[in-house]
Each structure stands twice: as C-alpha cells, then as structure tokens.
C-alpha cells in the first residue's frame, strides 16, 4: 500500500446525480451504455496507437439480488493519474460552461469518460475503478462515493493495460443487475459494436455481439443477405418483416436498413427509428432522422456524423440532420423507383399496404408520382379502382374535394355513368388535380355539386310554359329556406329530387344551426358573419320531371297541394343527403305528414284538406 489521498469534487455530486437520473436520461439503464461507451472509447484510443492490437470488452456479473456486483472490463488505453484528475476536473468545469454544452461537444475521451462514469451512481452507491495506462506506470485504484469524495490509491504492481469498473447494486436497483435483462440491454446497445463483447455470470458465458453483420460498412451488400437482415430486424425492432430497403448517404457516413412495415400504420403514429452513433445505440425512438412521409418503414440507422442531444438519446435538429434526412429519403425513393421498373408486383404490394404514405410522398414529389401513379387506389363511383384501371376507360375523371360533395352527388353521378373520384380523403383531390401533369392522357376536372346539373336535360320551352305557375308556387314555398327550384330531366328516374349546396350555403346552414342555440354575444357575431354569405348562399333543389311523382305534382292544379308536396320533397331530399334539419324544417315535415294524412282520409271529398 502506498499513498492514499482524499480530494473533493467541485460540484454537488448528489445534485448532479439527481439531474442525470431524473432529468437528463430517460431511464437509469443508460448507465450501461455509458460504461460500454467508455470501454469502446478506450479500446479505440489504444488501437489508434497500436495497429496490431485487437480490443475486446468483457462484463461479469457476480452475486445475486441486493448483493450483486457488475464488473465492466476493457483492455483499452487505460488512465494515468493525470487523466483521472482531469476527468474529474472536467465535471467541475461543466458548471462554468453554458449548460448542456459540456455534454454534447465532441469532448476529449477523458471528458466524456468522467460523465459516463458518474451516471453509474444512478444504480450504485460505490464505484471502484482499477485502471492501468498503456503508457506504463503503476496501476491505480479509484474509489468514488456519491457523497462527493473519492480516493486514489496506487497499486503495487503494473497490470496489463485496461480498465475495470466495479458497480455494487444500490438498494432498489436490483433489476439493473438481473442477468437476463443485462444481456438484453447490452445487446440492444452494443449489437453493432466492432469489438467482441463477452458476458459472464455463474451460469452463462457468451459473446453478445457475435452476429455483427458484415454489410454494415456497405448497406448495399445487405441485398445479398436477406435472411440475416430480416432476422436482425426482428431481433432489434421486435417485428417480423418481409421486405427492406438499404439506406446510405453519399458520404457513406450514415447507413441503415429501412424495414417495410408489414401492416398499415396510422398517419399520426410516432415514427420510431433505431439509431446508432458510432455503432452505439443512441435512440430507439428517433423521429426526425427520416422524412415525415417515410412512415411505412421502421429503420435501423448507423451514423457517425450527427450530433446527439445532451442526453445522447436524440439528435439536434440542425442542417446536417436535414441533409442526412434528405439523403436517406432519397435512398427510399430511388428504391421505389427501381421497383416500379423492375419489380412492379413488389411495389404494388407495398402501395396497397401503405397507400396513404405513398400518396403523401407523391404530393410532395411529382417525379415520384409519375412513377407510381398507375398503382394508386382511389374511391370512385365505379368502386375502389387503381389509376391505370380508371384510365383504361378513357373517360373524363371528375373529382370532388370533400367527402360532403362526393356524398351529395354520388348516386346521381353513378346513374349517369359519370366517373367521379372521391377527393375527400387525405391527398386524393390534390393528386387527381395533379394527375394530368404526370400523365398526358388523363383528363380530370373538379366537380362541384352544382355542376352535376350540367348533365341534366333542360325541360323544353313548351314544358316551361306548362309548368310556369307551378314552379313559381314551389319557388315561393322554399324561399324561406334559401333554396331555389330547378325543374330538369335526369337519371335515375326513381330519384324525385336532388338537393345541392354550395360551400357558402353549406357554411350558412351550419351557422344557422349554431345560431339557434348559442349565447347572445356569439349570436350577434354569427349574424354578422352570415350576412356576408347571404347573397351567394342559395341551395338548389333539382326536381326530376322524369319521376312520375314529380310529374303528377306539377300537373296538379291545387296550389296548396303543390306547396306542401314541394316542401315534403325538400325535407325528404335533406334526409336523403343526411343533412340535419333545423326547427323550421322539422315543423314542415310534421305538418306535411299530418296534411297528407288528412288528405288521404278525406280523399272522397273535393275540398282539399284541413289541418286544424
């Protein structure tokens, strides 16, 4: 035994540990990543000095439960006495620097080393480190306590270079010393590390990362190792995949595998990718490393060019990240384009599963749209069809921009064999509008509900004269609903009336509904807003003179009969179109029913009806 000195930290260590464990890191298990990182850095530093040296890392678990000890050993460069002091000084410095910088800067190996070691206090009340510098000298033992004291003791002998860290289980931290979990976590963090990591406890001894893929340096080579790639995906991402796309940036400093999700995903779902920085797992839930549209893949990505955040669990949103994100996006896009040319079946499978995502991508990128548009499915009056099927008929393709509009016109359009695409879904209207830009033969046109009438046949001048009076009564009757009458001939004949609503009229309807129930201050505001809509906000009730009931109504001579019948057709059309009715309209419906009952019961008399 020789000298043993006591020094004091310059920071409040327990406060520091509290920050680390409760605020910086998301989970205490990251201590494992930190000690692994220290070991990797030590090995890397030594191999830079000695090209023949082959490093390795070893973990050993002894005891069980509260009596467990975990030892992490590397045969890397080791620390000198100066190094040891410096890494502690570094921690003192961090308070002088501005906030998080000390954690994120590309600091020296020693600087990071100290912070990494400190994180072990999350799971251990005493950390013992035995280190032998490759530069020679005697081995050192460092012993740190969470109360802020540490001791350094010089050992008698010179050991072989490297560092061992011993952690003793802290009360309530038993789970971080469970063999199964430890092995899983070491695999999670270190599966891609380039040095063998061995693990030993009383039962097992194994190499954790013995299946490190050979194609990490060149993801393109992953194409030739399908089973292995899919297996890695299942092991790391916990899902069984069937297809994948290799990712690579131009510089080659970022690579990865994008696994195609075997099920469709919700657009709102958090995109989680698994990202390795210098082959060490940094994040299992990195959202921002792939473009937003790439939500049909889940990826494993490795990089050495991005800057991690303070917790080293995410990446800073900076220009580098933007560049990497774009390049990785380009890898996916290029692969899809390649599929379109050489493997259309494969592309079609993916599109079917992830149509929404593909559409999102197509909206952003016309050249991509150009390649895949044939296989994109849309909902139409002819059923769910792919674009190439729609084009085959050489028909004009109408589209609506909302579900509402589509619903309003769908049965009339079908009866007239109009091809109408429902543009009410995300991106659909935009894509159909864009279609002629990528496909010269496509003829598309926006259809607004009023336009359906274009396909209607006008009544003749003769008929116009004949029905003039009746139409006038009808118009007056619907005036109070801001609805006008149009008498036409159209298919299907069994449809007596069609109610159409312009956007303004539709807005006005919902304002009226709200106005009837809202408090005074808002009623007056709504009144002002609706006044600007009033002029343009007429709805139209198309009456189909081809329909026998309509025909008979207009031939009737009884004015009050016409009025009631038209009102009933109006409310009926509202109901058919799923429009909620306001109080006035409900009243019309109720009175109308009673009137018709009355007429029916008094059909033998020639007086018409009485409702009193």
């Amino acid at each position: 035994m020789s000298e043993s000195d006591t020094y004091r930290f310059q920071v409040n260590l327990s406060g520091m540990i509290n920050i680390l464990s409760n605020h910086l890191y998301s989970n205490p298990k990251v201590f494992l990543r930190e000690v692994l990182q220290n070991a990797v850095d030590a090995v890397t530093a030594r191999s830079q000095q000695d090209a023949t040296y082959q490093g390795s890392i070893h973990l050993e678990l002894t005891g069980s439960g509260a009596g467990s000890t975990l030892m992490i050993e590397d045969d890397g460069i080791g620390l000198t006495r100066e190094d040891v002091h410096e890494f502690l000084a570094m921690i003192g410095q961090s308070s002088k620097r501005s906030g998080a910088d000390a954690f994120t800067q590309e600091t020296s190996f020693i600087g990071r080393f100290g912070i990494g070691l400190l994180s072990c206090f999350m799971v251990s009340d005493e950390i013992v480190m035995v280190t032998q510098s490759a530069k020679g000298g005697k081995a050192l033992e460092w012993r740190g306590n969470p109360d802020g004291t540490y001791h350094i003791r010089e050992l008698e002998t010179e050991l072989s270079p490297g560092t061992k860290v011993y952690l003793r289980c802290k009360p309530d931290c038993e789970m971080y010393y469970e063999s199964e979990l430890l092995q899983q976590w070491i695999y999670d963090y270190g599966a891609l590390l380039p040095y063998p990591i061995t693990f030993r406890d009383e039962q097992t001894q194994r190499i954790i990362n013995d299946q490190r893929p050979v194609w990490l340096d060149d993801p393109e080579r992953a194409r030739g190792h399908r089973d292995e790639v899919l297996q890695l995906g299942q092991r790391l991402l916990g899902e069984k995949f069937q297809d994948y796309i290799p990712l690579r940036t131009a510089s080659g400093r970022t690579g990865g595998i994008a696994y195609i999700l075997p099920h469709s995903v919700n657009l709102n779902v958090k995109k989680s990718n698994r990202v390795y920085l210098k082959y060490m797992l940094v994040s299992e839930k990195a959202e921002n490393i792939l473009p937003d549209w790439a939500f049909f893949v889940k990826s494993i990505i490795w990089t050495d060019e991005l800057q991690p955040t303070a917790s080293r669990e995410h990446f800073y949103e900076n220009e580098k990240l933007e560049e990497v994100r774009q390049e990785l996006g380009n890898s996916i896009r290029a692969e899809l384009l390649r599929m379109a040319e050489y493997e259309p079946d494969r592309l079609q499978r993916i599109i079917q599963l992830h149509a929404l995502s593909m559409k999102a991508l197509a909206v952003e990128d016309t050249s991509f749209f150009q390649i895949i548009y044939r296989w994109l499915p849309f909902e139409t009056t002819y059923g769910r069809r792919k674009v190439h099927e729609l084009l085959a008929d050489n028909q004009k393709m109408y589209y609506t921009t909302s579900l509402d509009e589509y619903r309003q016109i769908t049965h009339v359009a079908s009866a007239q064999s109009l091809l109408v695409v429902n543009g009410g879904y995300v991106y659909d209207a935009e894509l159909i509008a864009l279609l002629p830009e990528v496909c010269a033969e496509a003829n598309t046109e926006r259809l607004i509900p009023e336009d359906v009438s274009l396909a209607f046949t006008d009544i003749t001048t003769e008929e116009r004269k004949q029905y003039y009076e009746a139409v006038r009564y009808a118009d007056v009757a619907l005036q109070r609903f801001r609805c006008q009458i149009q008498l036409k001939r159209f298919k299907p004949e069994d449809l007596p009336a069609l109610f159409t609503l312009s956007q303004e009229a539709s807005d006005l309807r919902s304002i009226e509904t709200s106005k009837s129930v809202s408090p005074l201050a808002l009623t007056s505001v709504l009144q002002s807003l609706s006044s600007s809509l009033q002029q343009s906000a007429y709805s139209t009730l198309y009456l189909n003179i081809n329909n026998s009931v309509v025909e008979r109504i207009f031939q009737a001579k009884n004015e009050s009969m016409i009025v009631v019948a038209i009102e009933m057709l109006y409310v009926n059309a509202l109901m058919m179109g799923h429009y909620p009715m306001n109080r006035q309209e409900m009243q019309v419906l109720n009175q109308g029913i009673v009137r018709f009952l009355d007429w029916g019961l008094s059909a033998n008399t020639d007086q018409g009806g009485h409702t009193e």
Partner: protein
Amino acid sequence: MNNQPEQINPDFEDIMDQAYSLPNGRAKIALLEEAIRIADSLGDVEQGYSAREELVETCTFSGHPMKALVAFSWLLGQFDQQPEEYDDFTLLWSYKWILDSIASFPEVSRAQIDELLVDMRKRYEQFGYSERSYYYYRFSLLKDYGEVEEAQQFLNKTKAMDRDEMSDCEACEQHQFVEFEVMKGNDEQIIRTARPILKGRMTCGEVPHLTLSKVLMPLYRQGKLEEAEKYQKQGYRLIKGNRDFVLHSGEHMYYLLNIDLLQALEVFEQWVGLSLDHENPRDKMMFNAYAAVLFKRLVADGNVTSVKLPAGYPYPEEANDLPAIASRLEQMALETAGRLDQRNGNSYYTTLIQQL
C-alpha cells in the same frame, strides 16, 4: 352504384375513429362534419358536442377559424343549458382560440368583439381563473386593430400579473411579444425578443413555427444573412402544407424575393392553392399583399413570364399575364385592408400594405 356502403351509411363512432386517425387538415374536418351531421340528425346532443369539440381544435390548428367559431358557438350554447354535463376547462380554453382569430373578420364589429371579451372575462371569473387572460386578450386584440400604444398599456398590465392555468404557454406568449415588436418596428428589439425562441429554449406546438418567419426581414436588414437563411429553411419545413400558416408562408415569400425570385415564386405556387379559399380574411390579405410585391418584382425583373396556377384558380388566363396577377392580388389585399381599417377606425392595414 357505389360499392362502398359504409361510406353511405357510416356510423358515428366509426367516423370519429377515422377522424382521430388523421392529422389535422381538410380530410379530418370533412369527417368530423359528417359525424356532426349524423349526431344532429339523430338528435344526439352529447355526440354532437364531442365531435364539435374535436372540430374546434382541428379547425383552429389547420386554418379554418370560421368553422371553429361556428362550432364553438354551438358548444357554448349547449354548455349553458347543461353546464354539469361537459368539461368546462376544454371549453374555456378554446374560447381563447376564438379571440385569437375573431379580429381577422372585418364583418365583426369592435362592439361585438368587446362583448365577447366581456363574456369571456365573466366566464373565466365564474370558474375561478384570474383576469390576466382578459388583459392579455385586450392587448392581443388592440394589437390586431393596429393600436400600438393602447396595446402596450394592456401588455404591461398583463406582465404585472401572475400566470395561471388559463394562460397561454410561455412560448406562445413570447411569440405574441415578438409580433408586437414587429409592429413597433425596431429590428434589434424584434430579434432580442425572439432570441429565447430562436435558441430553442421556448417551444410548443406552434412555436417556433410562427416565430421564425418574423425575424427573417429584421435579420436581412441587419445583414445577418446566414442566420436568416438558417431560420428560413428551418421555419419553412415546420409550416409546409398547413393552411394555418398561409400568412407565414407569405412572410417567407417576402423575405425570399430579396434573395432569389424563383425560390419566392416557388413558395407562391405551393401556397396559392391553400390561400384561395382561406377562411381567415386577414391572413389571406397578407399573403396576397406579399405575393403582389413578388409579382411586381418579377415583372420588373423580366426573366419569368408565366406562373403555375393550381387547378381551380379562378383566373387561369392570368398564368401568362404577370402584371394582371400583380394588380389583382394587390387590389384584393387592399380591399380587405380597407374593410378591416374601417372596422378598426384607422388606416393601419392599408398603410402596412402600401409600404411593403
């Protein structure tokens, strides 16, 4: 006939499920409106309420303030009838969104807006929230009217009070302060006020999205081009495609036309479709005003003679007539500005647009 029966007779829960699975935007709004119609036609007030709650939020954050207002009015009315049935916090919180956009509608008079403000104050008081939100919104509305000095008084009053559960998050408030500094026009002060947001120390769902475009011109005028470029890229990525940010796309365009006319034109082409039927007259006005400057510059520059207009643009023939587009855009902007100014009782917006 259509072979998708579930589209024709869908049920309320299914539609709501579908709506929840979508990001904010038109498709989601369409589904929610569909759900509301079903609930209303079956007379199910509770369902109508829950669908409208979702609609108010969705519309607020995807650029449909009018729809939000209409649905909110209905909610408030139902709430007053049966206050014990519904969640008061959600409702009172959304009241603020209504006040955020109400001054954008020139049809709504100042007296009417004041009445709303008083109503909000009364309700907040009733549920035990502080008056700070009331003062904050006095500030914010006066700012909307273009009355700087009066707004300053209420800002001071707001800042002197403690925040409470109804206060906007700090990032949102800081953003409001930035907007106010933009009105006052001191570039250095604008940048200083925006600093905590730019540094990423204050963020929320809409900040820094809203803020980044505000510092572009101040930075440009101070010659800090690199910084401006950085925030332009960052900001544009955040707002892309969301019609809620049509005003901000205009600010990006206005900055870019100093840097690269073609890039500015690209921004116009990407956003003009969203601006056409935009529900917020003031945001649309500013977009048009910035676009008018862009087209005047394009005409003067002479290198570009046509523009890609979206399907449905009401004047497709103007695609090859840039002077006509420029004057139409300016005229539309000035027309709205005139109406806003008339309501506000000053000439703030007309002057603002003429000085661009």
